[in-house]
């Protein structure tokens, strides 16, 4: 306990005189007054004032001395210590004050009963969601930072999802987090294109696609015929449906006629798309790094 108290005292002194090592040295010298200082500086005052008045004055300054709060100059501290060496009443007072401070300094920070960040972020989202509009990093112009409520809301929600994910892996920087999701996106897109590629490169896949497109076309044609009975509006709707049906027919034909060359073409598409995504994400995280001062 005593060692702990000494440590605290030492720590404070270190902080206080960090910028002025000379002063710290002086204080260190006065903290244990050598015999030569014995009452020397106070003798005249003792003669001028009664001892009782002197003790009152000393005791007024003791709290600052105990606290080492910077208001007492080293010379005055030396004088006070000299007085303490000869006056048991003031010495006792000083010692008790020191011990009180030492005991108070044994108060330790309690551990948290739980991590409150999850609850807090959830409550913020519920009670104050959308208070600060999602914006691009401050480097860009203010106009481009304004977003519509809807896009803000969706991004906001995904943000909170990643936050709750992160709570389990606390030591993760935002930079690695963003590259992770970027890679996840690349993998997902790659998988999607690969599936499409396999589907289209097989005769069975093309047939299935063609058949389902044909069915859809059939339904659309039926709806168009039914609505064409209605005057004006029905006619417009009918025309629209037959246009969609015609384009579906075109798509169907394309799928049916796609041959082995589709394999090569789609492979090139996947590579190009992946490169573009990686490049764009790289640029984004670089911009973020720059805006956060390189941390």
């Amino acid at each position, binding site marked *: 306990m005593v060692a702990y108290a000494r440590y605290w005292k030492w720590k404070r002194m270190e902080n206080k005189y960090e910028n002025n090592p000379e002063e710290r040295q002086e204080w260190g010298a006065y903290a244990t007054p050598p015999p030569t200082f014995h009452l020397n500086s106070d003798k005249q005052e003792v003669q001028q004032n009664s001892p009782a008045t002197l003790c009152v004055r000393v005791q007024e300054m003791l709290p600052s001395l105990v*606290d080492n709060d910077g208001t007492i100059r080293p010379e005055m501290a030396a004088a006070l210590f000299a007085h303490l060496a000869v006056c048991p009443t003031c010495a006792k007072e000083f010692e008790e004050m020191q011990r009180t401070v030492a005991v108070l300094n044994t108060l330790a920070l309690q551990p948290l009963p739980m991590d409150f960040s999850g609850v*807090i972020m959830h409550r913020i989202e519920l009670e104050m969601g959308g208070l600060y509009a999602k914006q691009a990093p401050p480097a860009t112009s203010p106009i481009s930072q304004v977003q519509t409520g809807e896009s803000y809301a969706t991004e906001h929600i995904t943000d909170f999802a990643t936050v709750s994910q992160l709570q389990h892996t606390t030591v993760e920087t935002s930079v690695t987090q963003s590259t992770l999701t970027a890679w996840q996106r690349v993998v997902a897109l790659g998988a999607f294109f690969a599936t499409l590629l396999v589907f289209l490169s097989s005769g069975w896949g093309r047939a299935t696609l063609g058949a389902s497109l044909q069915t859809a076309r059939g339904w659309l044609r039926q709806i168009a015929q039914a609505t064409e009975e209605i005057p004006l509006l029905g006619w417009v709707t009918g025309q629209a449906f037959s246009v969609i049906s015609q384009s579906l027919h075109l798509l169907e034909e394309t799928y049916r006629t796609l041959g082995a060359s589709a394999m090569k073409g789609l492979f090139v598409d996947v590579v190009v798309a992946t490169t573009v995504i990686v490049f764009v994400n790289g640029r984004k995280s670089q911009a973020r790094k720059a805006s956060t001062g390189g941390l």
Partner: protein
Amino acid sequence: MRTVSLLEQTDAMLVRQTLCGQANAYNTLVQRYQRQVYNLAYRMLGNAEDAGDLVQDTFLRAYGALASFRQDASFLTWLYKIASNLCIDLLRSRKTRYALSLDAETDEGREPAADSRSSAPEEIAVRGAVQDVVHHAIQNLPERYRVVVIMRHLNDMSVEEIAQALDLPTGTVKTHLFRAREMLRGRLRPVLEMEADGK
């Protein structure tokens, strides 16, 4: 010194990111300072449950007022300011409730409950809980003294930081601190004697 200013820069950065709508920046701030705020609240209010609620309220209120936070100031000191105000409000409302329900004496300087429990040094030694005694002694200080003692000795704040957080002149903070210690000196006498014997 340098580490402190670096840390503050990072806080300011996180605040700016939060204001730009990055929710996980605020999450980092919460995780960084929740323990300090919790401890201030725990020592002010005396129990873990109220302290937990107060941590939540503090960070919610700070989030709501984040736009008004001066970026060159210390974020932690600002949090302490919000937290201590909320603590004092809660303690006052508690006191009013107490007065209404029991019609009892509500004077801040009333005799501490801890004193009846801690008389002989052996008793304390047996319980082996100096911290417990100190905690109870602090609980029985008037609020304005309690808050400075906790900030100074538990949160390790300087007198200037406390003055900033409480909107008081440094002289007043010092006076409160010394008076609080005087009161504690009397109440902690058994512990202090034990400390002296321990040497």
